[in-house]
């Protein structure tokens, strides 16, 4: 047992002390606290030492220079609170002749756990840790877990879409019946759109799935979403990229959204994902899958992969007060821009000059609506007609995010402005709907 030494700051005693060591703090005003030493919290105040008391409660004790800390026992193996989890011995290899599905992990909440040191959520370390979150994953058949990335979704970049698309294609070549991609929800819809454009003639479903609650919580939606996603990947006659998440707030019903028409509509609800401008592609309720009539069945193959893209484009949200000089500066150097305009697809007429110049330079300028639903239409108001004349391409009911992703692939594939324009205006992955029924069937 170590004891405080004279004249030394008691905080020195715990510097470098392994988490899980037993300590006792005695303050100069007569208080004493005994417990398990914890690493300090990133939002803790100065001179706060964190302890876990025998009751299980964590507390923070402010340790002044006159206080004392005694180390009762030093944790040698580092397996105390906050240490790394025990690794699972052998990861399951799921192809014993039965059809198998692949679970590609990219990071995100669904494959994250709480970091008790920082208090934040961090991505899972490896396959073993992911399987430890979801012990029932293989209930219906083999699942092969393939770690692809280890990233929260706000860190995902277009180059990662290529990596994921490559891995999906490879997995199908290896014989997977379907592929589940576990992904952070923040940019899940972007990745879904990207995979929709990169992968054609899919021999089985590609199901993107996420969680709005981390799997260390008993109430996490990750487990039921993942269960539903693997079920769809294993059984559905579906050759599309879809997003599967809770349909409502209950753990009993899941919606399938086409990868090019889905948006995260809420920052925290389980049913945050919604198909825009129409009903969802399908739903899974009580293990019963229903797909809408226009769902594309599995292709006989071969799968076509074209992951080429050029990231030199952007998405610009118009707002009152956005000056043309600033917009022009922002767009400078890009090969294309998607405008999220107001209403039917407008920006202030002050922007017409830079748009004309950009289009003349060969920059693609596409128009979408920042309204949460609906199409753009250049013919209703004068501004629209002027924008059209200035060379803006009106993109129908395509979501701004989808249009942006599609533009990147278009720029990767086509050198000529007219070919690119043709590609942008063609419905290649269900991203454009020409008919909007009065009451979308549910």
């Amino acid at each position, binding site marked *: 047992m170590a004891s405080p030494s004279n004249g030394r700051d008691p905080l020195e005693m715990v510097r470098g002390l392994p988490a899980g060591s037993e300590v006792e703090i005695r303050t100069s005003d007569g208080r004493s606290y005994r417990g398990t030493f914890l690493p300090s919290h990133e939002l*803790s*105040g100065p001179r706060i030492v964190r302890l876990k008391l025998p*009751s299980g*409660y964590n507390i*923070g004790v402010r340790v002044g220079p006159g206080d004392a800390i005694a180390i009762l026992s030093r944790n040698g193996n580092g397996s105390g*609170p906050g240490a790394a989890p025990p690794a699972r011995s052998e990861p399951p290899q799921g192809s014993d002749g039965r059809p198998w599905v692949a679970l590609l992990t990219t990071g995100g909440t669904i494959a994250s756990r709480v970091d008790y040191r920082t208090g934040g959520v961090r991505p899972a370390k490896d396959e073993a840790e992911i399987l430890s979150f979801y012990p029932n994953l293989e209930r219906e058949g083999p699942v092969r877990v393939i770690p692809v990335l280890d990233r929260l979704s706000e860190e995902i970049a277009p180059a990662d879409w290529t990596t994921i698309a490559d891995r999906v294609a490879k997995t199908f070549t290896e014989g997977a019946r379907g592929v589940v991609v576990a992904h952070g929800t923040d940019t899940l819809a972007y990745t879904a759109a990207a995979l929709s454009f990169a992968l054609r003639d899919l021999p089985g479903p590609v199901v993107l799935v996420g969680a709005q609650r981390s799997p260390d919580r008993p*109430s996490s939606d990750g487990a039921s979403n993942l269960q539903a996603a693997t079920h769809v990947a294993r059984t559905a006659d579906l050759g599309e990229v879809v997003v599967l998440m809770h349909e409502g707030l*209950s753990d009993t019903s899941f919606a399938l959204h086409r990868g090019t028409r889905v948006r995260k509509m809420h920052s925290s609800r389980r049913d945050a994902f919604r198909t825009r401008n129409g009903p969802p592609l399908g739903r899974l309720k009580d293990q019963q899958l229903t797909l809408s009539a226009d769902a594309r069945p599995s292709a006989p193959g071969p799968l076509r992969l074209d992951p080429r893209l050029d990231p030199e484009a952007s998405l610009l949200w118009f707002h009152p007060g956005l000056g043309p000089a600033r917009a022009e500066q922002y767009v400078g150097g890009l090969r294309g821009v998607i405008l999220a305009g107001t209403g039917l697809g407008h920006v202030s007429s002050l922007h017409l000059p830079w748009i004309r110049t950009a289009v003349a330079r060969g920059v693609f300028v596409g128009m979408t609506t920042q309204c949460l639903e609906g199409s753009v239409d250049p013919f209703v108001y004068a501004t629209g007609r002027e924008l059209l004349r200035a060379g803006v391409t009106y993109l129908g009911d395509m979501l701004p995010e989808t249009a942006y992703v599609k533009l990147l692939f278009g720029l990767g594939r086509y050198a000529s402005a007219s070919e690119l324009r043709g590609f942008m205006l063609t419905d290649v992955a269900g991203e454009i709907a020409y008919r909007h029924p009065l009451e979308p069937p549910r």
Partner: protein
Amino acid sequence: MKAGLEVHQQLDTGKLFCRCPSELSETVLGEVTRQLRPTGGEDRAIDPAVAFEAERGRVFRYEATTSDCLVEADEEPPHELNPRALATALTVAALLHARPLDEIEVMRKIVIDGSNTSGFQRTALIAVDGRLDVGGRRYSIPAICLEEDAARKAGEGEGETRYRLDRLGIPLIEIATGPEITGGAEAREVAEEIGALLRSTRRVRRGIGTIREDLNISVPGGTRIEIKGVQELRLIQRYVETEEERQTHLLAVREELARRGAGRPDGAPEEVTHLLEGVATGPLRGLRERGAVAYALRLPGFGGLLKGARPEGERLGRELADHARTAGVRGLLHSDELPAHGLDEERVARLREHLRAGPLDAWVLVTAGRRPTAIAALERVRERAAAATLGVPPETRDPLPDGRSRYSRPLPGRDRMYPETDVPPIRTSEEELERIRGSLPEPPSAERARLAARYDLHAEVVRRLQQLDEVDRLEAMIGRGHPAATVARLLAQDLDAASEGLPTPHHLPTDEELEAILAALDRGLFAKEALPGLLRRLMEEGPPVEKVLTGAGLTPLSRGELEILADELVERNASLIAEKGERARSPLMGDLMREVRGRRDGKEVAEVLERALKRRLAAAGPGG
């Protein structure tokens, strides 16, 4: 015997982690269906209590109401900890001379019985090392916590539990005492004092279910048992005493098992459905027709130990049944209670033979719709029987309305606590603590002394008023000019006495109604003896209070009128008086009281009647 208390008091400060009101609601807006899964804490270990609930694999239905939002539905992260609730907890900590922590960390306590949508209860340790003096004794208060209340149970069905979300998130102050309580009456007294102290903050919710107690009880050689969620303070004493008896009995059973050399029962559960064909009555009738099966387990060495020392007493058989029930069976039959329940001597003998049970062996029998359920139930029985050879197993128990308790789940450990990472740690500032210490409410002991002196009331009467949460009304009514002694009696005794035996719910007199009654009393419309009767009528019949006052015949009666009534009565009963003389007084008094009860003082009525009677007897003359 040693006992400790955990008092949980709801606050009316609004909910702990959102801006919803801390009020219950009867307006159900919709329903959400969920399941929960066990997860480990910082060191990945899964708590036994958590694993137990997970095994049950229940579905939970939540009713959303006007008193909850996305936070309660687990659809939005918790907001910052309610500063008013924290200030109230720190106030209580100061009243209990406890030391607030420098930095408060909100924890998640895993609870997957579904009562929290998140699967955990948020709780924070606020202060430690407090003390409380009650009845000349000092009790330690090791911990004061602030936590969120759970959703309230709205129903239970096959494999599912229904909860309403309105109560979820209401702040609770939890005050734990050390295990220094030595008896049931003492436990109640400490609980009442803590209740009065909490109410002195004026920030607590009032009424049934707004304060709940957990009792931790152990007898020498026994184990700590937690009886969770006692709502009726008056039953605390019973729970403590019953638990003492239960543990003492179980320890005696252990001694006997040890003497017999009995250990963990190791035989396999055996199907006995075929031995029960043709049972004509009782719970085992028509098993096959119902598609049910019966299984039995032999408990070697347990013969005669499943029934208690006395018929109503605690017994091991009931413990085994409680455990079996957690696997989904309705209950069990054991050999110590047979023959009975439709099983005759002969059939019992056959069962005994089939199970190869000797004279010192016991056996239990369960029925279920499915084999695995029956077998699982007997496995739980086996575990509980094995525990009986060691003594009193530590566990959490549910209080029952009759003062007994029932096994609910294993005692949770520290493995179920881990940090609530969505809420940053909270620093308690010296200025805030200074402000709180500078404006502390009057503690109950000081209030008692002040009220007793000021209104010339007995300290015990004031204590009673504090327990009944009636001090505010007392002061308000005295302030409006009613005599202190009458008001104190009304609130401390008469209300309680009047409601005795009345069905619930009944009308609870409002302040206005009580004041109307007091005003009538002050004006001499009736005597104070009539007060309980009037209150009872008001509780039975409900408002308006005027109807009760006039309906009782409480029109004023002067001394002169009373004298006339007495004379008339004596006149009407001349022959009775002639016959019985002085002995006629008693029946006449009864008649007269029926007529004037509550309008004149009883002593005065007796006096007036006495005079009238004397006059009559004198006028009749000797021998008349």
